[in-house]
Every structure is written in C-alpha cells, then in structure tokens.
C-alpha cells in the first residue's frame, strides 16, 4: 500500500533529508515511525501526501506512482488518502459536523448522503453529542478525533498520522491510539509518526525508526 524504493530527498544546500529509503507497508498494516526531531519523519509524510516530490527513487502510495504525478492529479490522489496532524488543522469557523463533512463536499457528494454518513462517523469516534459545536469548545482529544473522522469519512485506503498525540496528555493519547487501531482493524493501512517511545512499546506494533534521514533496521 505504501512502498518506498531507494528514495532520496535532497533540498538546496545541499540538505539530505532522506537517504536511500526502502520501506514497504502492506494493506491493513499498522506501522509506527519513530525518530528524534529532525530525523525526517515529517519529510517522509510530506512525500506520502504529495506535498513534496522525491529527488530520486520510486514511491507508490495506494497504487499511485507519486514520482511522476502531475499537479493536476494531486487533488484526486489526496482524496484517496487520509492525513492527520499534530495540530489537528480543523477549521475554526465550521462545526464538528461541517469539518468532518468537508471531504465529502469536495468529492461533490449530495447533501442527503452527507447527512447520512457524517453522523455514522461521529458515532464511531464518539462525538455524536458534539456535532454542532465548534472546535474551540472541544478538548484536545475531541479535536483530534474530529480530525481523524474527517480523514476517514471518504473511506481512504491509507491513513497517515504525523504525531497525532503530540499535543495530548497520556490519557487522551491512549484514546486516540485505540481509535487508530480500531480503524486499522477495519482494513485501513495506518502509518503513525511519533517520538513517544513508551507508547510504541505498549502498543506492540511494527515499528520503523528513522535517524538523520536514514531508516534503521531496513524495510
């Protein structure tokens, strides 16, 4: 589902952000990506979400070869994946319902379908009772759950989460990880970047480490 083959990413300077990345994540897998700050986790995720291009090598995500993707095709690709960030990236002027419905609106879904599907998802993430509230009135954990619901509402095959528990306390972090595991159990490939080693140990999932732009321990 996600495959890096001899991927390099070099910025002007030169700055070698990623070096010879070989990584394969199969469909339905749950994988942690760990590493210290500046190791290349976010750069890796920017490649996966097509916010940046590899300098060399090959990258395939959800059956899309991203090395040669044109900017016109990028929006359609992003509609096939889900992305969650540490800072949630919710729209303050939209309610929880409207935030979660956003990908469906972008897809051009009819209003009645949106009204049917969004409540289901809010139910799954435990936010039905917060549907009409704005992000400002939610806790950190609730905001992140809203972001996760938005990332999954269009049923992507891949969910990438860049430090999803970075701004949360341990209790809420566990809640979020439970939710992500539940999502993975339903068939979605989940790739989570984190520097919380304790949590990674507790979860006992496949873990890939990155340091100074290189993977430790191979694929």
């Amino acid at each position, binding site marked *: 589902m996600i495959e890096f083959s001899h991927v390099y990413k070099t910025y002007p300077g030169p700055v070698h*952000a990623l070096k010879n990345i070989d990584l394969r994540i199969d469909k339905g897998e749950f994988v942690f990506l760990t590493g210290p*700050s*500046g*190791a*290349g*986790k*976010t*750069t890796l*995720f*920017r490649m996966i*979400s097509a*916010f*940046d291009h590899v300098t060399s090598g090959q990258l395939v995500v959800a059956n899309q070869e991203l090395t040669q993707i044109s*900017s016109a095709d990028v*929006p*359609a*690709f*992003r*509609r*096939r994946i889900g*992305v969650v*960030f*540490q*800072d949630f*990236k*919710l*729209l*303050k002027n939209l309610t929880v319902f409207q935030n979660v419905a*956003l*990908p469906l609106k*972008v*897809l051009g879904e009819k209003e009645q379908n949106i009204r049917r599907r969004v409540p289901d998802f809010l139910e799954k993430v435990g936010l039905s009772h917060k549907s009409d509230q704005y992000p400002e009135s939610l806790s950190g954990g609730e905001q992140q759950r809203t972001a996760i619901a*938005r990332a999954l509402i*269009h049923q992507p095959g891949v969910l990438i989460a*860049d*430090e999803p528990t*970075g701004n949360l306390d341990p209790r809420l972090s566990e809640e979020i990880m439970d939710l992500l595991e539940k999502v993975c159990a339903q068939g979605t490939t989940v790739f989570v*970047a984190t*520097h919380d080693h304790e949590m990674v140990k507790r979860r006992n999932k496949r873990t890939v480490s990155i340091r100074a732009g290189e993977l430790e321990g191979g694929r």
Partner: protein
Amino acid sequence: MRELRQRFLLRLTTFITLTACFTLLTAGSLGLLNLVNVLSYWGEEIQITAYLSAEMAPTQIDALKERIKSDSRVDKVELISQEEALEDFRGQMASYAPDLAKDQELLSLIPSSLQISLAGRLGEPATSEQIEDVAKELRGYEGIEEVRYGQEWVQKYGAFLTLIRRGLFVLGVIVALAALLVVGNAVRASVESRRSEVEVLELVGATSWMIRRPFLVEGASLGFLSICSALIVSSVGFLFMKNLFKTELQFFQLSSHLEFLGPLQIAIFLVFGIGMGALASYLCVRRVNSGFAASGGQG
C-alpha cells in the same frame, strides 16, 4: 474581532482606491466623448462667414451668391439677412445683456452675411488650405467687407482631441496596472488570512478551481462594485456639468450636445472592471494548491 476589523478596513480602502482609479477613467472617457460631440457641433460644417457691405442691393447679393456657389470647393451658400442676424443677436443677448439687445445704434451695425460651407470634413489637412485659399479669394470680391472663419482654432482643437485620446489611453493603462496592484494586494491579504482554510482544502483533495474560486469571485466582485460606483460618481458629475451648461454657461449652447456614456460603453467598462478584479485575483492565487500547505510537524 481585530482580524475581522482589519480585513474590513483593507477591503474598504481597496474599494475606495479602485473606485477613484476607475472614476478617473470613466470621467476621462466621458470628457473625451463630449469633447468630440462639441467639436462635431462646432465644426460640423466647415464654414466661412463673408460679411456684406450695407450698400449691396438684393440682386447684387444674389449674383454674388451664384458666383461663390459655382466654385467647386464650395458646398453651399446661405444668406443671413440683416433682419435674421438681428433676431439671432437679440435672442443670444436677451438674458445676458438685454440693454445691448435694444441698442438701435449698435443693431444698425450688424451686417448681412453669407455663410459659405466648404465641401470637406473637419480634420482633413487639405481642407485647411482650401479654407485659406477660398477666404483669400472672397476677400477680393466686391461687396464683401470682411471674411471670417474659426476653423483655425477648431482644427487645433482637433489636434488637442487627439492628444486627449492618447492621454486617455495611457491613463487607461495606468489605471489597469493600479487596479491589478490594488486588488492583488487585497486578495493576497485575504489568502493569507484564510491560509489555514486553504491548507485544509488542499489536504482533503480540493481541486485548484475549488480553492481559487472564492478568491476569484472576491476580486471580480470588488472590480464590479468599484466600476459601478465609478459610473455613479461620473454620472453625478455629468449631471452637474450638464446643469451648469444649461444655466450658468447657457451662452455656449452646449447642454443639448452633452451626453452620457452609451449602453455599449457602460458594458465595456463593467467587463473591464470585473476583468481587472478577476485577473488580479488570479495572479495572486495561481500558486495556491501547488504545495501551499505546509506540514507543521518537527520532521
């Protein structure tokens, strides 16, 4: 709240600036249009006035008329008798200098004249030479005391009009550039203030058109509102001037020749305003959705 207030102020400033720019353009066009009208009115026919001696008998006048008419350069000749000239003079002076209109000694000095129209159009170089040639010949005819023609300054006025047209074109280019800058600045600020929204839209796979459309609409709306306001301001100014020519400046007898922009010209201005607004927005937002969103992670 502060951000909303700042955005409102920016939009208001942009609207006012743009309206001022467009008003320059519409007022300039209106001025040019009416200068052309006035020029056409004043110089519609190229005329020479030959003032006749008071001693000329009607038969002599008729013979002179025929002689002048036989000249191929002449289109028509019209006699303005002393009585007709007196009536015309009284009519013009009645409201300004009513005493003059009753001064018999003065009135007796007003001669009859021949209005000679040449067969040419204003602005053609050859015609000004013809005027001078014909006037020179007329001065030699018996019975003609004086020959006058105002075409010298009318043709200079034509050159002046050409200068105005060119100036208006340059002004149009400057206004277009100013509009692009002003609207672009406002849209850029709008994009920045809605950066987080744009990032999220990019994230969920919105197409470039979906993301850019609100900004294009914003720019086009700004352009539309500004050009409409400019047309309203220009029309108020026009009505004021027309009223002025009807009252204080009635002597020039121009008010009936003044006209506002026609439907086609108004439509062109509307398209120009909307187009400038949309173009400025497009130039600002064309890079949106090309990696505009930046991940906030540590990496």
